[in-house]
């Protein structure tokens, strides 16, 4: 029984579905829709129209002995059925396409291309049919809405008393040490934790926030009568539709570093939402008893996944993290500090992510070969056999190896443990921007670590290209002037910001943009930064 569920999960993984679409509910839904019982082979998979409540959940109960309660229906829809439809794995209402969305007769069936592919699972044709299916279907990253945070106003967060930043798709922040660049990145990670319902020490830390006691996180400039809340205001474009988001975060204990944070902006509207639900029920059932009213309200709230107002951008904001690479983590020789998947904040999990790359992703990754003139091939030794050949001392858990084209074929393979660190950093960034499983919105702190200046320039140009191609939005900090030379500031989506502290110590941000006439531009941005004409350098020495 468990084996069949694992196989279903492996199939979903093969289809490149996000991790959330590879859980048990999704696996069981797939088994039900394919009519595969524990002893069946996948070749027996068949197309059958099924409703959720009666057919799918009943099938699971009978054949897999798991009795999901009616309250979990929303999870089935949200985690399995809706994404499966978007990805083209299943069809919705194939027998009656005109059914209204809320109809109790809503039904689902496997799509024929997906069914034909699944039938080949555990056969030699599986990889071929899978690639064929994937080449014709939408990428999982396309399932997510395209969002752009166009403007952020941060209030009372660490050194930022109040600042507004208008973002593009690829944003680079420069400034003196301690000017507050990372605080900008962290404010967005805090929003991510809020949207992920994860405003705890762990929720913030796992997104890359440097945790301090709440009274240190809240701006405490001497001369300002500071409100004891953090305010973050976002203007977003979600699939070209404008949206607004605002949170006002307060710690439940200002002096406790492990304090939970509460979004006062949401709390204020909970009572209104509850009242609306009660009104709706009593309008439809005027004589309902108090106990039934509460029970009915609970059912509705449970179906909606709680009282929180869900928004289309929640998942993308929730996935936002700040990557800050450590060579030891990339080499796989320090314990995985970040548990984030598929890529850890410090570089963990790179080999695993690459091992699951499809052909197209692998081709894109091989772009790395052009960045290093000595690099012949990136090898992913999934079964870790090279270790047994003595190619790594054994401290490293990474299965990545690199072949040096200048060395004898019998003696040219280096493990991640003892290879050049620059190549590990570059591969990480490429994988982060290429993979369909990595966040669509994220930040990188100090991107230049371990990279040659000329490589920085070329890498940035490539990352800008990948950002556009994969419809991502990124925020990057750097202290290396060469990074700036990879930017085309005439493209409004590529933006450069100077971060500085004013005479009162408050962090401010300014967009650096050229005036229209560049006919006399004889200088590179990197040179301008070093000469001080862009600002973003210490002014006191």
């Amino acid at each position, binding site marked *: 029984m468990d084996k069949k569920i694992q196989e279903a999960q492996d199939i979903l993984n093969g289809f490149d579905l996000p991790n959330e679409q590879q859980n048990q509910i999704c696996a069981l839904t797939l088994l039900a829709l394919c009519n595969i019982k524990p002893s069946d082979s996948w070749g027996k998979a068949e197309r059958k129209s099924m409703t959720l409540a009666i057919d799918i959940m009943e099938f699971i109960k009978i054949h897999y002995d798991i009795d999901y309660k009616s309250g979990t229906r929303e999870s089935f829809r949200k985690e399995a059925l809706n994404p499966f439809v978007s990805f083209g794995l299943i069809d919705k209402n194939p027998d009656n396409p005109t059914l209204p969305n809320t109809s109790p007769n809503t039904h689902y069936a496997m799509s024929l291309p997906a069914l034909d592919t699944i039938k080949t699972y555990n056969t030699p044709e599986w990889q071929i049919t899978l690639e064929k299916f994937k080449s014709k279907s939408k990428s999982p990253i396309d399932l997510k809405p395209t969002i752009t945070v166009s403007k952020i106003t941060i209030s009372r967060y660490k050194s930022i008393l109040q600042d507004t930043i208008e973002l593009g798709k690829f944003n680079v922040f420069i400034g003196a040490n301690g000017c507050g660049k990372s605080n900008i990145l962290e404010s967005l990670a805090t929003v991510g934790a809020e949207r992920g319902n994860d405003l705890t020490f762990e929720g913030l830390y796992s997104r890359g926030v440097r945790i301090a006691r709440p009274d240190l996180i809240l701006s405490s400039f001497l001369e300002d009568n500071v409100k004891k809340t953090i305010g973050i205001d976002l203007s977003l474009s979600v699939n070209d539709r404008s949206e607004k988001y605002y949170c006002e975060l307060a710690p439940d204990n200002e002096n406790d570093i492990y304090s939970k944070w509460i979004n006062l902006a949401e709390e204020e509207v909970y009572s209104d939402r509850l009242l609306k639900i009660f009104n709706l029920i009593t309008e439809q059932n005027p004589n309902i008893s108090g106990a039934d009213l509460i029970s009915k309200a609970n059912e509705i709230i449970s179906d909606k996944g709680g009282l929180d107002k869900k928004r289309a951008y929640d998942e993308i904001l929730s996935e936002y993290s700040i990557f800050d690479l450590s060579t030891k983590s990339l080499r796989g020789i320090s314990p995985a500090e970040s548990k984030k998947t598929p890529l850890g904040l410090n570089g963990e999990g790179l080999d695993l992510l690459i091992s699951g790359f499809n052909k197209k992703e692998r081709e894109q990754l091989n772009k790395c070969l052009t960045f290093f003139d000595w690099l012949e091939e990136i090898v992913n030794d999934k079964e870790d056999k090279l270790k047994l050949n003595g190619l790594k001392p054994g401290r490293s858990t990474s299965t990545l190896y690199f072949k040096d084209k200048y060395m004898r074929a019998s003696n040219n393979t280096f493990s991640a443990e003892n290879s050049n660190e620059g190549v590990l950093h570059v591969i990480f960034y490429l994988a982060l921007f290429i993979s369909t499983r990595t966040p669509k919105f994220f930040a990188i702190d100090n991107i230049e670590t371990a990279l040659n200046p000329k490589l920085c320039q070329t890498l940035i140009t490539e990352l800008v290209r990948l950002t556009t191609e994969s419809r991502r939005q990124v925020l990057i900090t750097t202290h290396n002037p060469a990074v700036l030379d990879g930017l085309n500031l005439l493209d409004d989506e590529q933006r450069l910001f100077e971060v500085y502290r004013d005479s009162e110590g408050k962090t401010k941000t300014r967009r650096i943009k050229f*005036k229209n006439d560049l006919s006399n531009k004889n200088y590179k941005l990197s040179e301008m930064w070093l000469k001080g*004409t862009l600002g973003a350098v210490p002014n006191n020495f």
Partner: protein
Amino acid sequence: MQCLTIFKMKIGVICEGHADRAVITNIITGITGLDRSNILALRPTNKSDETDKAFKNPKSISSWSVIKEECEKKELINEFLAIEGQDFVVIHIDTAEAGSYGVNSPNKKSDNYCENIRSLVVGKINDWLVTDLSKSILYAVAVEEIDAWVLTIYEQGDSSKPANPKKQLSRVLAKKDLDSTSNYNNYLILSNPLSKQREITKNNYLSYNCSLKAFHDEVKTKVLPLL
């Protein structure tokens, strides 16, 4: 105003020394309301590395020759002015060594000495620049030395007269038991009253030095309309 909130104004300063920049910064922030962080040091900056410094004569760094060089090359000026919100560069020079850079000093005893020498030095700066950048340049020509501008705060009287304002300032400050060390932070404190319009009016600072008044007027007429 929308434009300024996005592209916050920054003013670049090419000056002889860090203490000079402190005085200029106070004057500009006082008139415009800009924050100190909006005033960027273009020269003197670390244009040279330690090898250059070891190879070249240290005296060639941070003097009128540096100002002349920057005006003639215009590299820093053009680079700075190429960015949105960066529309002005202050060029500071003292007249104490005007003879060395080719300005024949008018008669010091004449009534209009201060105006005349300032005008001649502004003309010299424009000669160095060749192209007309006068709309973007804020001429901070200090008759004798910029210390004379600071002196207006501590001694009531024509501060363009003393032959050596730096020494005079030092003497006056010593009497008041104030530190006269010439560096950015100390001069920022010493010249702080020049950032307060009420103090300037109340104590008539501008009436004691025509070159200070001329710079003040320059900032008012050129920068304020853009804010």
